[in-house]
């Protein structure tokens, strides 16, 4: 039966036994409940889109199906038989194969070696010869010219992604799960992938396509399931459902009252008309385009303003912040700080201009794990607080005093400032990083997911301090995937797939669900909404 025939059969109610049936899936991670009785039905010969906001449970469900983790409760049936894989090999042997969101490749090895590592995914292909023929056939089918002897890291990111996907696509999987497969692919590779998926599905396989990219979902999927808060809130055919409706389904708004009144799209005319308080904006980003991920971002920050940037993972927000401190080169566009062009050579140069970044990965990028709290507070001030010419002599008493004052204003919970930084909780560590960032002459503070892994109490203190800094005239850019937090922002900019689509003043009518919806709406769809 062809895919379309299956879909029609389902709609007509003569549903042949579905390929996959999940009922009441429940999964806890400690105190967090990722799945609260989720359902999913995937038919044979069907491309099934799995949609949902961050934390909705998509990844968890997909991991259970692939055998990476076990559910707490729920019934899982594959082709009518109970399906409870104990590990990924069992799942793969049963025909359920996952292409993970994170590229599982080893850059130093060749394409052939990388594919070899994934051979457990297609155990029906026995022997290296058979596998190699299959890989070559797949690449040809895809229209790609990739040599099996090429070293992975010499391939473009798009080609690396196709190799990673190839592991799942070869062989005879009956249920292929692709988690955000197009994230690194160019349009040509995406078209090729979709053609391959269609062919697999026409041959009877089922495909679960997890994606944030509603345009692609509309294009490829026969049916969709939307998860929200660990449960299914919608399932049905894709036909007749458009992007806006999809975005509605994913967030809470099911049509009805949407607050669009105070919203503007980032057209140049709109920006030009924007008011400039007391001498112009502190930061103005205009048509920013980077080598990767960021295509067109424009926004402004006024002194004393907290601007939140909302968006999904991969929308390019971190890249924008990195550019502001000189860690990335601008391809086109302009950045101005206080009216003057801002192109710092490196973070040291940016810091001298009063621009500081608090990075996303606390332990890896911000914490000196072997050092004490004083050192961690003072690393931005060794020379400014130092003695002698150019501050070349260290002044431990001054560092200690400055640390003490910062610890107090941040309400830091530590036994002694001479203790190791690792004795602090995540939240308190983050406070230290924030304290370090508040250098003399701070003008623009960039926060990347600042409250990740931070407990509730510390979160509040942290936000108080940020508000305090803003009150003193510091401009703040606040990037967060936890959209509820952006309630504290004065203005919100939404970034979708590398473009700033919508921005608005955050009045008392902050609506998290509306914001979630906007995070899925691509630029043209958002613009259409304003028209």
């Amino acid at each position: 039966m062809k895919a379309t025939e299956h879909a029609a059969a389902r709609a007509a109610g003569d549903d042949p036994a579905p390929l996959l049936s999940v009922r009441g899936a429940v999964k806890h991670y400690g105190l967090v409940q990722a799945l609260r009785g989720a359902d999913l039905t995937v038919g044979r010969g069907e491309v099934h889109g799995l949609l949902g906001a961050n934390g909705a449970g998509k990844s968890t469900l997909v991991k259970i199906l692939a055998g990476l983790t076990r559910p707490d409760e729920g019934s899982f049936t594959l082709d009518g038989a109970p399906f409870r894989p104990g590990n990924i090999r069992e799942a793969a042997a049963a025909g359920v194969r996952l292409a993970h969101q994170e590229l599982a490749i080893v850059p130093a090895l060749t394409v052939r070696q990388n594919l070899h590592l994934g051979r457990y995914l297609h155990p029906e292909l026995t022997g290296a010869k058979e596998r190699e023929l299959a890989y070559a056939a797949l690449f040809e089918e895809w229209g790609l010219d990739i040599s099996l002897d090429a070293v992975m890291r010499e391939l473009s990111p798009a080609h690396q992604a196709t190799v990673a996907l190839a592991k799942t696509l070869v062989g005879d999987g009956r249920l292929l799960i692709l988690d955000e497969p197009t994230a690194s692919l160019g349009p040509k590779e995406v078209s090729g992938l979709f053609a391959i998926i269609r062919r697999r599905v026409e041959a009877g396989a089922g495909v679960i396509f997890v994606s944030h990219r509603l345009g692609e979902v509309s294009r490829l999927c026969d049916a969709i399931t939307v998860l929200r808060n660990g449960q299914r809130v919608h399932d049905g055919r894709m036909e007749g459902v458009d992007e806006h409706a999809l975005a509605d389904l994913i967030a809470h708004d099911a049509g009805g009252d949407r607050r669009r009144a105070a919203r503007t799209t980032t057209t140049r005319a709109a920006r030009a008309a924007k008011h400039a308080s007391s001498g112009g904006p502190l930061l103005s980003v205009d048509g920013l385009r980077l080598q990767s991920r960021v295509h067109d971002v424009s926004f402004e920050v006024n002194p004393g303003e907290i601007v939140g940037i909302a968006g999904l993972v991969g929308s390019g927000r971190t890249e924008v912040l990195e550019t502001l401190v000189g860690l990335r080169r601008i391809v086109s566009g302009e950045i101005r700080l206080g009216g003057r062009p801002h192109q710092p050579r490196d973070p040291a140069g940016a810091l001298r201009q009063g621009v500081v970044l608090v990075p996303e990965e606390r332990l890896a990028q911000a914490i000196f794990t072997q050092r004490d709290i004083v050192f961690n507070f003072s690393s931005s001030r060794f020379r400014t607080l130092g003695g002698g010419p150019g501050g070349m002599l260290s002044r431990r008493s001054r560092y200690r005093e400055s640390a003490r004052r910062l610890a107090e204003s941040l309400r830091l919970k530590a036994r002694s400032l001479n203790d190791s930084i690792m004795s602090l909780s995540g939240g308190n560590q983050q406070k230290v990083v924030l304290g370090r960032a508040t250098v003399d002459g701070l003008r623009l503070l960039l926060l990347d997911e600042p409250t990740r892994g931070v407990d509730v109490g510390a979160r509040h203190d942290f936000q108080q301090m940020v508000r305090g800094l803003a009150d003193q005239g510091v401009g703040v850019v606040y990037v967060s995937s936890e959209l509820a937090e952006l309630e504290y922002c004065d203005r919100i900019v939404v970034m979708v797939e590398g473009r700033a689509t919508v921005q608005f003043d955050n009045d008392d009518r902050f609506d998290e669900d509306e914001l979630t919806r906007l995070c899925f709406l691509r630029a043209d769809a958002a613009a259409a909404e304003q028209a």
Partner: protein
Amino acid sequence: MNTVRHTAPGERAAAPPPGANQAGQAGTSSMTLTAVKFLGRYGTLLVLVLLVLVFSFLDGSRFLSFTNFQNILLQSTISVVIALGLTVVLVVGEFDLSIGYTASLAGVLTAGLYAGSAGGKLGAIGLVLAVGALIGLVNGLIVTKLGVNALVGTLGIGSVVMGATYIVTSGVPQSLDASGMDLLQVYLGKLGPIPWPIVILFLIAGVLWLLLNRTSLGLEWQAVGGNRTAAELSGIRVHRAVILAFVVCGVLAAAGGVLITANVGSGQIAGGQGYLLSSFAAAFLGSACLRDGEFHVVGTVIGVVTVAVGFNGMAIHGVSTSAQFIFQGLLLIAAVGMSTSARRMVSGRRVGR
């Protein structure tokens, strides 16, 4: 997933760092943990004490004499100077495999140039140190600007330096000029009751200690070595700090070369041979001493002395040279093992992976 944690006011947060493996999980017993932690902090001192005890037992009066201990320190000066240079580079998280070759080149240059008037002699020393600085600068530039891995880059430069040494000497050891014989006084003379080398040892160690611990540059070095990204985002000029570390290392390696020539009385082409391995051994031994896996000046000095005690004891006991090399190699492995384990303990990751 994040677990929600409420910290009551005043309560010291005892949360382990994310990703940390707590004692008792996954097979690491708390006894093993304590043992590793102990070794990381006192391991080297243990080895030192052990060596002293063993050799005191074996050769009593010959080993345990004031003259012998003074000898040990005298033999250590060159090693300390070169190892301290390496320590700075290790602190910023890099490696320098060219130090032995730099010392050799400096040694032959000293032999050739140290002559004539006092001003000329001083100039000669200055020039030799400048050559060391230049080698360090080149090392620093290829590691930072070219992004070449330090192990490979400095090895390559070391090879170039060795070639230069051959060219300069035409393969022949350089004898000191007659007017330059006063250089030997460095090893023969004393400052009051203390032999010059020991004075130099403590002087240079003192200066390096101040540099690493009491200057902003030293703190920047520690920051860069601790977490390069965090240092960069703190506004520290990482490339400049790394380059300066290599320059200091180069200068000290050259200084070591000067001392070698002062000791031996001529410039040997392979004069610096052996100091690479002993410097690494000393620095790693030093990191397993009082500082949980971090490189530091005092530790390196103790590390050098420990190795020197070992060699001294073996020489007195009449152990063959080959056995001495085996000893040094084993010591290096033990030192690196203790140091690395100690480091992993501190940052909370399980030993062994």
